[in-house]
């Protein structure tokens, strides 16, 4: 019996369907000084992403002779959460910066820019659950906006479980009170999952359903990313 059939009077805290994304707004090219940039609202998450590069790597000893190095930073504004947090990066921030890099690397033709760096900075201005996915969504649009050649767009969202039910795109409350959270990033054209984490408890069947559910969510987000880019460029800047 799949969760599709279980749907009854039970309601999510914000009234969404179990498989419904939060309202998403994506805008590209919002920062004049960055080579590429994007702004995303995903529920009450508000995130800005800026991309610089490809450019000569500095310091030089970090450069790679065969490819560009992608450097990602996930950072939260002190006022983005309650109570205020220190602006110094936490261990969680460092871990997320790393998985963001893994999530984005497969999509970029890094091998075209040896000895270079591509720097992706994401800033969480307001956090509302699922910030890492929202950051990946914004970063992808910012990368395209910067003219970085991409194999595919990377779309990300989470699935999870609360009150025994599987749901898509957990908000802050669902993230904290739920039984499991599965953030996932996905390249729709290439059909590859590039970010996959999970905390909580799920049976293997639930786990697989969650992955499938999150992939469906990513496909919807992918369309919104394309839309945001079309809006700016008329046509989508993408590898053929």
């Amino acid at each position, binding site marked *: 019996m799949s969760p599709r059939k279980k749907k009854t009077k039970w309601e999510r805290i914000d009234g969404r369907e179990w498989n419904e994304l939060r309202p998403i707004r994506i805008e590209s090219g919002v*920062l004049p*000084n960055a080579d590429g940039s994007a702004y995303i609202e995903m529920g*009450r998450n508000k995130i800005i992403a800026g991309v610089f590069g490809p450019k000569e790597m500095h310091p030089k000893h970090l450069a790679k002779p065969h490819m560009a190095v992608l450097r990602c930073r996930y950072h939260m504004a002190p*006022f*983005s959460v309650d109570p*205020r947090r220190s*602006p110094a990066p936490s261990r969680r921030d460092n871990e997320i910066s790393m998985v963001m890099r893994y999530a984005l690397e497969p999509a970029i033709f890094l091998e075209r820019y040896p000895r270079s760096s591509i720097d992706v900075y994401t800033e969480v201005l*307001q956090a509302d659950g699922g910030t890492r996915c929202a950051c990946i969504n914004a970063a992808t649009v910012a990368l395209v906006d910067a003219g970085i050649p991409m194999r595919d767009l990377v779309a990300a969202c989470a699935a999870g479980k609360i009150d025994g039910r599987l749901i898509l795109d957990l908000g802050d409350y669902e993230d904290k009170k739920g039984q499991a959270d599965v953030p996932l990033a996905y390249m729709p054209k290439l059909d590859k999952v590039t970010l996959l984490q999970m905390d909580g408890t799920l049976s293997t069947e639930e786990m697989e359903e969650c992955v499938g559910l999150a992939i469906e969510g990513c496909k919807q987000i992918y369309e919104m990313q394309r839309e945001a880019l079309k809006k700016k460029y008329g046509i989508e800047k993408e590898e053929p």
Partner: protein
Amino acid sequence: MSSRYGIIPRLKRKKIQETLATGKRMDGRGLGDYREISIRTGIIEKAEGSAEVYLGETRVLVGIKIGVGAPFEDTPDEGVLVCNAEFVPVASPAFEPGPPDEKSIELARVVDRGLRSAEVVDFSKLCIIPGKKVYVVHVDLYILNHAGNLIDASAVAALAALRGAMKPVYKIEDDEAVLTEKKEPLKVRKLPVAVTIAKIGESFVVDPSADEEEVMDARLTVTVDDDGNICTLQKSGSEGLTLDEIKKAINIAVEKAPEIRAKITGSE
């Protein structure tokens, strides 16, 4: 002292000075004109107060977080205000992630000194239990795009955010502070406005752009309160100013301040 510059800035400076000589600036403004200012408040709903300010392409987001903590030992009956500035790396290729550098420290300090000098907030009203528990107000300046004159934009954003900020209400029970559901305005008593004047050659311009800042000789920031009094000065830049030039800059600032203040009061 233009010999101190490299070739590119020297050419840029020459170009800017030639334009200034015609009474105009590279972006078409008059010497005494600010770029357009737009202010939006309340955009970070989870913060106790917030404001985003565009000054031309310069973009600053300020969030106010109000917590509680211990007072300083020498002011046991007063709340605490802490001002911090982040030069977010998205804002400029010149910004790097890391702890605050000289420039971001100066920015935070000048905005902070302006708020203190003008006594914008009544610190005695921010005491919950004397000597033990007071409100701690964090003013975080977040620079999202750097297109020059960060101080003026940040000062406006800080004021706009503070004006709209609500603080949680505590009630005292058995000498303990208990958080209630209620919120009340933080209350801002004055609106000190920072006006920055750059000296380039013999010209004085207000609200310098990033290009102008790169080639300016000196910069004077004058914070002017509601009564036209000065409450902060900050000179920077590698050239000196004569007494007459200082007077001139102060006068420009006193003249421009009401125009900017009106933007803040009109932003609601």
